[in-house]
């Protein structure tokens, strides 16, 4: 019996729901055979995969340690918690949920501060005037340090803040903050504004692979299988299937649709009778349908695609490139 292939997923909240929905769309149904309170699960119909339900920061640490093979976690945590992250993990694919920006926010009253260069100057002046440094409340020590160093800002101190960071300036425990925000509403409610070029990271949930996990042949095979399904699903979601048949449908028209709408023809050019199957990004569906009818089509059908399996497996290729 081989060691199991472990996928770590968030243990609670919206992140768990979104993650389970994401895997389900890829035909990977996560179940907890021993009940909802269990923190171990499996995938229906796939042996040898163990699902570990953990907190997002634990997932990140387990990935860094190579204790799990794949995991779902935010890029903010990857960049914050793993030194030299790119040597330890590979970000395989952004998942389109769990959006959050890590930003530098200062009091709205600081009308003299618009960008990081202003903040740099204020930090220096503050240090001279008050005989202490500006304090930044955050839980993102490493991201803050890296970002401030990149802007050449020296005169600041970090104050650890585990929660309700945006309240720190009003509470007088810090002058400004570095925190995550989705809409900025909470920041505004606390009298804070985002510094213009102060977005440190645009983060979202990612499918992440641990480079230092045990990647034997069995593990690679399992990863290939899982990533094949995810890729097929991701590709399917990126397109709608468009079918039509009319005499004027030829290679030239296809070329035009390709350049205008990013259309692909997975099965090649139109047949001699002008029959074709196209994959079209959802946002261009109506424009494409209009174009095809203008050029002579009587009927155009559009359908959702369940999966697109291709010979290549771009997600697995990304993983394999990072493994020894």
């Amino acid at each position: 019996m081989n060691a199991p292939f472990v996928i770590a997923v968030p243990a609670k909240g919206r992140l768990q729901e979104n993650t389970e929905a994401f895997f389900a769309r890829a035909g990977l149904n996560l179940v907890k055979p021993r009940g909802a309170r269990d923190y171990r699960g499996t995938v229906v119909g796939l042996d040898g995969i163990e699902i570990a339900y953990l907190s997002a920061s634990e997932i990140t640490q387990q990935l860094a340690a190579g204790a799990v093979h794949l995991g779902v976690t935010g890029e903010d945590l990857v960049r914050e918690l793993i030194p030299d992250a790119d040597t330890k993990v590979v970000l395989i694919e952004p998942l389109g949920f769990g959006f959050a920006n890590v930003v530098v926010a200062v009091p709205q009253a600081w009308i003299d501060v618009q960008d990081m260069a202003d903040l740099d100057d204020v930090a220096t002046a503050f240090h001279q005037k008050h005989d202490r440094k500006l304090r930044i409340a955050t839980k993102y020590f490493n991201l803050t340090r890296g970002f401030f160093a990149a802007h050449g800002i020296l005169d600041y101190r970090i104050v650890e803040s585990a929660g309700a960071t945006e309240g720190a300036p009003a509470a007088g425990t810090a002058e400004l903050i570095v925190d995550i925000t989705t809409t900025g509403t909470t920041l505004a409610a606390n009298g804070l504004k985002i510094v213009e070029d102060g977005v440190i990271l645009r983060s979202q949930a990612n499918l992440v692979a641990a480079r230092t996990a045990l990647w034997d042949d069995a593990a690679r095979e399992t990863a290939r299988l899982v990533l094949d399904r995810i890729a097929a699903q991701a590709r399917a979601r990126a397109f709608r299937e468009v079918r039509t048949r009319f005499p004027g449908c030829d290679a030239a028209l296809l070329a035009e649709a390709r350049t205008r709408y990013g259309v692909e023809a997975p099965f090649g050019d139109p047949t001699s009778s002008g029959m074709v199957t196209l994959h079209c990004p959802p946002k261009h569906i109506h424009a494409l349908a209009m174009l095809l009818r203008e050029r002579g089509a009587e009927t155009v059908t559009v359908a959702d695609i369940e999966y697109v399996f291709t010979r290549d497996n771009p997600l697995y290729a990304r993983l394999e490139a990072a493994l020894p």
Partner: protein
Amino acid sequence: MTSNESNSAAARNAQAEALVASYERAGYARATPLLIQPADPFLDLSGEDLRKQIYLTTDAAGEEMCLRPDLTIPVSRDYLASPQAGAPAGFCYFGRVFRAVSAGPTEFMQAGIESFGRTDTAQADAEMLALALETAAHYGIAKPEIRMGDVGLYMALVAALDLPPAWKRRLNKDFNRKTSLAHDLDQLALRSAAAKREYQGVLAAFAGTDPKAAHALVTDLLSIAGINAVGGRSVAEIADRFLEQSALGATNSALPEQSRAVIERFLAIRGTPQEALAALRAMAGESGVALDGAIALFEQRMAALTARGIDLSRIEVSTDFGRGLDYYTGFVFEIHDAAAPEADPLVAGGRYDELLQRLGADRPIPAVGFAAWIERLASLGSRA
């Protein structure tokens, strides 16, 4: 550990103890600070960037503590806590320091000296370099490379330039960045040239108005908008800087070309102390910036070094040396292996007159000192 290794460690320690005994004979009392120190003073003085290089932990009360990354701050703190605080006093030390680096050893032996409270600045500076050279000689390194700088010269230059306070602030801070100053000067010049400010019109309207009235108006506007000052900066402070920006914007001041040329000319000065002195005098005379005090100190230090029998022609001075070296305020030096000038220094030191105040002293106390890297010295000593 093999017996050979433990023998060599014992021999290395005995050699370093002999070195420290020579410091004691020179009048420096042996200090033995604790290994575990509060982290705050280190982070405060060296910046948050140090955080990734030190071993942090917390005590039972949740205070951040660290394994000492150097001995200067611990010795200084012990001195300030002692009855001697404020009075002239000299200390020497020999002990372990810890740096969290990803490759290679993480603990090092350092020996060194801290001299507090001496007002004969040039003499004290010269004595430190002399003792540092004796330290190298103790390990059989007779002709090391000596690099010397003086942060005080740059500070005096910036103070003497005819520039608004905001510019001086930036230029002073810039000296402590670890990037190229030329690049930063470009950035500073470009930045102001591109007037991209949202409030540019408002700022321009303020230009040339009575500063008091403008200040009152900005303060009133903020309070009308119902914006309370939060987080340590007062409304007056914000208004001040807002108006300062308007002054900068109105004169459309990129760093004036003339000032920039003076700074660049200054930073290009290098050579022996005699050559540097001549170049400094010529520069000061031709550009009309008054550096008399700083140049006089430089000259006194040269005389004191000569009086101690140090051959000045062996010293390489460069005016930009000392950039990015944390808390130095004046004289700075490094002693290198002449055969491997690119390697890390064997001994490094200088003057840090603001350190003790930043550690809590109620008045300025002059301070100068150096630290020697024992493993580096010993490995060269065994080669000799």
